[in-house]
């Protein structure tokens, strides 16, 4: 059967199980859009290409499947770059299809031509330009395979216009099972045995988990493992939800804005079992004084992450699920018992740290505290929502005060720290999980970076809720200016902002505002009962900072616990 390139693209995607595309049309992808029109392929039209990439990313994080977006050449393609780097830094599987000028015009500075494969080479896991229609089907499938295999990441496929117009024979072949790049990770059994020995000998062990546990779909295995070994667990920002935040063994997040007890536990532990985390500088603080007394075991799928920042005692290259499954099997076979006396002492010490400095804030006053808003969002959604965040104070407070018990429910730009991520990511998450309440916790700065997506949520009645913690400042930068730059608030006052309620209404969404603490609960209740998109504008205390705080370059045991 002879098919056009545009048809082949959609067929190959469907064979790989892709049923949703986030995109924005343009000149060189007209043939593909024509095919989308004819086949009624599910396509969500965003209002800016950056949002298409973030929405695909949010879709991937919430569903655990690959997210797909489609944009035109030139500016359409370059607008996705921030979304691509965001996904790259957090190892999120997305495939970005970009249109390209016809092959004969490539390199001639044609209208809307950009060398997008050149531009994205350092920030994609891999990218392709399809020069012949005969290569198209295979490339599409390979792109999806590469995006989701091994350490996942973004893949870009550049499609010249003449390739989507040309015809070739097409045979259905089902999803691609392997590619020439086909990493297999079997954990080293001896190393896992040694891990168990080290756990047995440890008096003060800590487990640190990262995004790799979520990407590896290993949360259930982790829970089983921890139940058995009774070791306290700290999770990085990317690891939120990998282990239940409400569990008594949970230490919350470590690092710059981590909990006192997570940072103390890491600093004093004698064994740090790290799974699927990469020792980011925001986690480790001053490297020499990170877990100074601990033997470190590092389980990671990416050999390049091991011994990159922190030198480890026992490296294990494996996906998180295989390693934990095997560990659980060994625990079962070996009738593993924990050294109870030692463990009791250690857990008691941690209990004391938790009691000494729990996450807290001053609740009194006339103004709404941003942390209170998040606590109430947690309470009123019963901890069962998918939360996306923007970047800055809103992100840290969300990570601290909303407790997550399930993986794939906290979506945040951890590595790149992309303002403007949360709202389009929430769109992607809601499309992936129509059954869930999806809330973007935003600041008044970052929401304005992709606010045009209000048109998208109204267009498709995507019932995302946006909670703006509105303090009239670029809050996190302001906090640094307050602490490190003598309160010289250079260009962080953004109190010239739109009326978000009226703005939401102008787009056709519902806008609600709270200015007093007692208005918070009724407002959230009202918003949650509205079956469509809602913008909640909370006028919060601009003086509020994120604490604890470790100054950059300081050891994580050196925390400012706030005023």
């Amino acid at each position, binding site marked *: 059967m002879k098919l056009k390139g545009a048809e082949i693209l959609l067929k190959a995607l469907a064979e790989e199980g892709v049923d949703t595309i986030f995109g924005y049309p343009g000149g060189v992808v007209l043939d593909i859009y024509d095919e989308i029109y004819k086949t009624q392929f599910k396509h969500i039209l965003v209002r800016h290409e950056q949002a298409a990439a973030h929405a695909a990313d949010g879709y991937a994080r919430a569903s655990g499947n690959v997210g797909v977006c489609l944009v035109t050449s030139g500016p359409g393609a370059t607008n996705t770059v921030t979304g691509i780097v965001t996904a790259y830094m957090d190892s999120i599987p997305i495939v970005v299809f970009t249109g390209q000028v016809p092959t004969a015009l490539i390199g001639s500075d044609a209208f809307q031509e950009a060398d997008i*494969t*050149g531009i994205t*080479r*350092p920030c994609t*896991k*891999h990218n392709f330009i399809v020069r012949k229609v005969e290569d198209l089907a295979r490339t599409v499938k390979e792109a999806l395979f*590469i995006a989701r295999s091994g*350490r996942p990441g973004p893949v870009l496929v550049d499609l010249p216009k003449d390739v989507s117009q040309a015809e070739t024979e097409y045979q259905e072949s089902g999803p691609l099972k392997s590619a*020439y*790049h086909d990493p297999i990770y079997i954990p080293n059994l001896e190393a896992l045995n040694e891990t168990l020995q080290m756990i047995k000998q440890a008096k003060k062990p800590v487990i640190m988990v990262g995004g790799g546990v979520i990407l590896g779909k290993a949360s259930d295995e982790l829970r089983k493992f921890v139940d058995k070994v009774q070791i306290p667990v700290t999770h990085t920002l990317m690891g939120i939800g990998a282990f239940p935040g409400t569990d008594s063994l949970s230490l919350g997040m470590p690092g710059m804005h981590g909990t006192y007890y997570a940072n103390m536990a890491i600093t004093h532990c004698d064994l740090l079992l790290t799974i699927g985390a990469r020792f980011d500088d925001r986690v480790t603080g001053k490297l020499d004084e990170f877990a100074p007394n601990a033997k470190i075991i590092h389980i990671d799928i*990416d*050999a*390049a992450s091991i*011994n*990159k920042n922190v030198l480890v005692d026992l490296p294990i290259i494996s996906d998180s699920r295989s390693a934990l499954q095997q560990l659980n099997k060994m625990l079962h076979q070996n009738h593993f018992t924990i050294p109870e006396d030692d463990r009791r002492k250690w857990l008691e010490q941690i209990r004391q740290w938790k009691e000494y400095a729990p996450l807290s804030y001053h609740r009194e006053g006339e103004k709404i505290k941003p942390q209170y808003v998040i606590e109430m969002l947690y309470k009123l959604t019963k901890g069962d929502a998918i939360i996306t965040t923007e970047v800055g104070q809103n992100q840290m407070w969300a990570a601290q005060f909303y407790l997550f018990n399930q993986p794939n429910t906290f979506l945040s730009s951890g590595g790149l720290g992309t303002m403007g991520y949360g709202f389009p990511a929430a769109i992607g998450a809601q499309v992936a999980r129509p059954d869930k309440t999806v809330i973007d916790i935003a600041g008044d700065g970052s929401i304005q970076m992709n606010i045009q997506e209000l048109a998208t949520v109204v267009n498709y009645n995507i019932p995302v809720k946006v909670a703006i913690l509105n303090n009239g400042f670029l809050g996190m930068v302001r906090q640094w200016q307050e602490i490190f730059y003598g309160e010289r608030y250079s260009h962080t006052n953004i109190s010239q902002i739109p009326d978000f309620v009226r703005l939401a209404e102008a787009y056709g969404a519902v806008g609600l505002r709270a200015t007093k603490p007692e208005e918070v609960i009724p407002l959230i209740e009202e918003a949650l009962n509205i079956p469509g998109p809602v913008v909640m504008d909370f006028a919060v205390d601009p003086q509020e900072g994120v604490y604890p705080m470790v100054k950059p370059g300081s050891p994580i045991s050196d925390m400012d616990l706030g005023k």
Partner: protein
Amino acid sequence: MEAEEHVISLLVSNRPGVLSRVSGVFGRQGYNIESLCVAETIDPQVSRITLVSKADLSFKEKIKKQLDKLVDVIEVIELKRTKSVQREMILIGISIKKKVRADVMKAVEMFGCKVIFLKADYCILEIVGSKEETETAFNFFKPLGVQEIARTGVIALSHRNNNDI
């Protein structure tokens, strides 16, 4: 740690853009590639890149892992001097005016290089050898009036003792 020269041999897919990915790994971290040689292997779909870079030990390990991660990279091998054959070729364009002709020809004989192009007052010499050999020869010719030079950079093959790679 002291920066040392390392010879790294890569088998990669023979596709456009691959070299740019490989060199990107070095460039991003501010490391220079001292020499680089790329050509197809017996399998036309696979190319071999042989490159030399100066790096300290820990950085070398990082680079090797980063290279290994690239989808187009099939294999990364570090070639140790004692466990591989390493060769470089240099073409030297040199003046052979009367004053220096005798000295040049003596050196040609001494280093066993070939004269592959000859005019009345100018010739091109080919020197093949280990990097030390080519270097020594080049340093000898330099004061005699070298006008142009082109070097292949090191190419190398391991002795294929599997324990070494």
